[in-house]
């Protein structure tokens, strides 16, 4: 693919002036801080910030020996896996239902997409309100069934709470992409299978689902990125990482260690690890684009 025009304009200074704003912001707010992060991740600063000392990979070594960090890794993996699997399955189910609905397709679409517009922090506040042990309407309903709900004390319930909030918010996004993917599948393929006697479930698993796999893979990456990074607001507004660090995901810990505990080196090392994760995920995402073209 050509990356430039055959017809181009000539100017020695204009192109630089045009990219200058973007470039300035990129350098000042992206490259410089990212570089600082990498440098700080290999430094040790005393509590007053007076002296710094180069310590190589010590900060990283300390992290991997730190139980709090390992716990955070575990929490993040559980959380991301649950958010991705639940978010994708529920959205796929709804999209498959909406795909061949004759009447009301737009109606359902409109009513299912708007949670995308609700801020994650607001979603968290709504769920905290619904599940509040003292006044939450759902928590109250659960006691009727004999379930004691208190996410302020029970770590598993706290985890469940942020998973539900994160999934609720993400379903609309997944739904839209699945619906677009489903509608791109030619009806003739499915009709042919129907004529050969395949029932709806069989048709879904042997034809529709395999054809959807590029979309599913793409959404999987997006959902993992979402669970890793965009859910900071949900955790901060709903559980603050608690109780007893049960919901302390990596991004929240970076913030907590950097801003609250003022552990610069440790926080920077955590940031560097997250950076490596984003780079990996971004590359995975671009693989998807390449693969999609062939199919």
């Amino acid at each position, binding site marked *: 693919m050509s990356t430039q025009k055959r017809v181009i*304009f000539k100017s020695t200074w204009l192109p630089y002036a045009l990219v200058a704003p*973007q470039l300035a912001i990129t350098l000042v707010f992206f490259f410089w801080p990212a570089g600082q992060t990498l440098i700080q991740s290999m430094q040790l600063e005393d509590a007053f910030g007076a002296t710094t000392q180069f310590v190589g990979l010590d900060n990283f070594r300390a992290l991997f020996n730190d139980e709090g960090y390992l716990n955070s890794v575990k929490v993040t993996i559980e959380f991301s896996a649950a958010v991705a699997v639940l978010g994708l399955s529920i959205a796929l189910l709804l999209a498959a*239902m909406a795909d061949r609905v004759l009447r009301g397709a737009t109606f359902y679409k409109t009513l299912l997409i708007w949670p995308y517009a*609700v801020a994650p922090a*607001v979603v968290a506040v*709504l769920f905290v309100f619904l599940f509040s042990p003292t*006044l939450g309407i759902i928590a109250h309903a659960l006691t009727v069934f004999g379930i004691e709900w208190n996410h302020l004390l029970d770590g598993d319930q706290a985890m469940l709470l942020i998973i539900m909030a994160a999934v609720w918010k993400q379903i609309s996004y997944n739904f839209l992409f699945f619906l677009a993917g489903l509608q791109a599948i030619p*009806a003739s393929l*499915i009709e042919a299978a129907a004529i050969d006697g395949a029932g709806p479930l069989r048709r879904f698993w042997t034809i529709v689902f395999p054809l959807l796999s590029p979309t599913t893979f793409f959404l999987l990456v997006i959902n993992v990125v979402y669970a890793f990074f965009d859910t900071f607001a949900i955790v901060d507004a709903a559980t603050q990482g608690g109780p007893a660090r049960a919901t302390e995901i990596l991004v929240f810990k970076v*913030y907590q260690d950097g801003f609250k505990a003022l552990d610069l080196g440790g926080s920077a090392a955590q940031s560097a690890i997250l950076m490596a994760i984003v780079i990996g995920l971004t590359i995975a995402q671009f693989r998807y684009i390449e693969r999609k073209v062939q199919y």
Partner: protein
Amino acid sequence: MIERRPVLTFTRHTLLLLGVAVVAFPIYVTFVASTLTLDQVLAAPMQLWPGSQLIENYTYVLGHGSTKGASAPVGQMMFNSLVMALSIAIGKIAISLLSAFAIVYFQFPFRNTIFWMIFITLMLPVEVRILPTYKVVADLGMINTYAGLTIPLIASATATFLFRQFFLSIPDELAEAARIDGAGPMRFFWDVVVPLSRTSIAALFVIQFIYGWNQYLWPLLVTTDESMYTTVIGIKRMITGGDAATEWQLVMATAMLAMLPPVLVVLLMQKWFVKGLVETEK
């Protein structure tokens, strides 16, 4: 539909309605809570039909905020959120249009380097460079300013890509014709490129407006002054006191107000929204 199966059709609609209900329920409860008195909200379980305090609660938060936690008026917060969302959406679109135009229509040294530098920002979300970015903004004296809230967020690799892709699809004949007619590059940009990009601009605007309005981590760091809080931050500050001390009816009214603009944008500009989502991710 391939075949007629009433049971299947029935299941479809039931599941979809269930999905709609799950999506709508939290919002409905929020709305109801925002129309009650505090005592009514605290009476567990809360009633599920709207109360009489709709106008009182909303006018109170808009003018005064809550009496505990953050006390800045929500009207001010809504204004801050609006400034933030609009500046980010317009800023991103403007600088991305310009840089994509330079990259596609000019040949100059370091063109590819610059393109890759913009690309790499995709891999550096705020979350992985929190402290140093905060420090840069603090050193530049931009804490508690609109500039500090918005400028660090307006670099955009995705928007630059989207416009670059689109510009590459504009027929060369247009540029040629413009040149023959004696139009310079900027004239061509304003009179041909920008009008042709209208659809992409509208789609991006919707996505970026929502992105800007819903920002959390960044305003949390950059605003310490109550009068600079955005609505989303304001809600969080209102509930720091715990269940008993929180004026839930006011928090819920603020939550409704925080949701209203982005949800309206999605519903009213649904076509652009779907287009924007699909295009920015590809």
